């Protein structure tokens, strides 16, 4: 126990050291808040309809499913394991299970099976990365191949429709003000996971493992369990993300989550969570998701096509990380 505290102390010291008045550091720490605020402000003035209730709902609809996946994946990133590519397979599987099983049996059975599958994904990914010390990119790439292959092989790849009136459907269409229920799920998930990351021993271990692997291990921590836990949370997020996505469209098909892996990671990075591990927060991820969703929304409103949207996201990632990296350099000097 005393060892744990010893591991944490240098990290906290570092955080304090970094908080100097350097402008780059300020940008990397608070940039995302300011950028999001400025972007929203400018768009509200410059673009007709941006600030309308209906459009705010659209932004939230864009942000919610990917955001839920991203807040879960944040744990994997903070534990310095790059990312969880298998969320693509997991989101699609959860969506197909939710709609397919609800049609065949009932929603309870759907939840149970989806939980089981999410658990299996978290366990396999976590074991391979945590115990076998295999690279997370390759492990989750392999489980994506296996998972999508199994899903398509077993279901024949069909598209599943929910009935026009159902619990799932009403969840997907209900709004409270401009907030679709899915956005409330994102907020609740984010608050919950934020507490886990900052207030629990597990969250503390995830952060310290991310910032210094060897020290954490030498302090007698069972690092395998920490990694398995991080992947479990990622799987949990992917499952809920799949549910929300399925409820929103009332359909499920194995190709619906294409691109979720790197899009979720992009949001995490833009939010300012460091891929070097250790540094970052769940709330930053939420901001990152909102920022990317607002930006995409603005580009669609301005009639810019897919190519420009991708270019913008790419530039954003590099800019966000460049600022972070320059700030680190300045601090180190």
């Amino acid at each position, binding site marked *: 126990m005393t060892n744990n505290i010893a591991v944490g102390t240098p990290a906290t010291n570092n955080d304090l050291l970094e908080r100097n008045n350097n402008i780059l550091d300020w940008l990397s720490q608070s940039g995302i808040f300011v950028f999001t605020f400025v972007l929203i402000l400018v768009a509200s003035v410059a673009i007709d309809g941006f600030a309308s209730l209906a459009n705010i709902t659209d932004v939230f609809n864009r942000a919610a499913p990917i955001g839920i996946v991203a807040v879960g994946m944040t744990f994997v990133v903070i534990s310095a394991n790059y990312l969880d590519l298998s969320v693509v397979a997991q989101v699609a599987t959860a969506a197909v299970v939710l709609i397919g099983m609800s049609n065949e049996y009932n929603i309870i059975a759907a939840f149970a099976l989806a939980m089981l599958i999410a658990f299996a994904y978290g366990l396999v990914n976590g074991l391979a990365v945590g115990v*076998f010390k295999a690279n997370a990119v390759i492990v989750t790439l*392999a489980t994506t191949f296996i998972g999508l292959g199994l899903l398509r092989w077993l279901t024949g790849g069909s598209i599943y429709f929910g009935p026009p009136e159902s619990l799932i459907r009403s969840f997907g269409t209900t709004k409270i003000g401009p907030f679709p229920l899915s956005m409330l799920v994102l907020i609740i998930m984010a608050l919950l996971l934020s507490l886990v990351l900052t207030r629990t021993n597990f969250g503390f271990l995830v952060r310290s493992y991310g910032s210094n692997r060897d020290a954490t291990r030498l302090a007698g921590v069972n690092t395998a369990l920490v990694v398995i836990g991080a992947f479990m949370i990622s799987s949990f997020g992917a499952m809920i993300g799949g549910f929300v996505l399925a409820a929103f469209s009332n359909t499920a098909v194995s190709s619906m989550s294409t691109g979720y892996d*790197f899009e979720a990671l992009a949001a995490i990075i833009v939010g300012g969570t460091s891929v*070097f591990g250790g540094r970052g927060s769940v709330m930053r991820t939420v901001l990152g998701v909102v920022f990317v969703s607002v930006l995409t929304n603005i580009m669609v409103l301005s009639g810019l096509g897919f*190519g420009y*949207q991708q*270019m913008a996201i790419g530039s954003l990632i*590099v800019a966000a990380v460049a600022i972070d990296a320059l700030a680190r350099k300045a601090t180190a000097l």
Partner: protein
Amino acid sequence: MTALKSPIKKPNVASQGGLAGFGRQFRTVMARRTEGRALALLLVVGIIAAIFEPLVFTSYSATLGRIALIGLVALGLAAVILMGELDLSVASTLAVAGVVMASIDSLPLGIAAALLVGLVIGVVNAFFVMGFGINSFIATLGMLFFLRGSAFVLSGEEPVRLTNRDAGIAFGKPLIGPLTPRMLLFILAFIILQVFVTRVRIGREFYAVGGNREAALDAGIPVTRRIFTGFMISGFVAALAGVINTLERTAADPTAGSTVLLASFAAAIIGGVLLTGGRGSIFGTLLGATSLGILQVALTLSGVQVDVQNIVIGLVLLIAVITDPNSLRAVAGSARSFLQRRSRSQAGG
């Protein structure tokens, strides 16, 4: 704390530091070991294919074509991975290079421009990594999005046809024996890169850069320059693959490369290239690409549906990565410490 930490780092330092002779020997042993694993896979896949689908070997030109398709990008990628960096932008580089090439009417000019684009992308990637100190995984992820977007914008979101389609069709025909220009270029790229990382000093230093960057710096290796070289190789090779694909297909497709990134990563990893750098070989990557190519062609010929093929490839990848010597040592290590802890607690109780 430092006293506890040093035993872990020691093998690396010893292998890279002043004891250059021992270090090289150590590296060669490590490299041979990883190739052994790829070789075992190749043997298994080859024997099974020979029994069930002899067509894989009797019609070897198609199999070679598949291997060259997967392998070329993987070879360039291996150069970067050896140094402990990643390049996720290879697939988008391939697409952009193709679009640039097809957009230029003159074929030689188009090819030159496309290859130049590849080199420039390599320089930009390396600049982000070394100049800003951005993790290469993220820098090249940004480039992945940016270049994919550029390919769509430049092409107007539609395939771009070559002006000279006949030249493209001629390019796809066998040149020497059954070997098409694609295979010859692939073999050439393999030989050049293999010689480069084993016989040329600059190339050999890639291992040192990947193994222990601090030690490499101390030993006077210009790490920054090596990283630039590595990314330029990777960008150039990806662009070359884009050029070859565009020529062979007679058109450039902005969505090209959608299955390339993951396949080439898989080939490099199966070939024993360690993602944290410092270990692996170009030859191993060739073995990895060959096993993967034979596996895919054999499964296709025997009519196994794609979903099942993907399950098999995923399993092979998972097995390859968890049977890595380092992985097994990690498992053995944690099992030992677990048992020790248990026996100690039992003794205490």
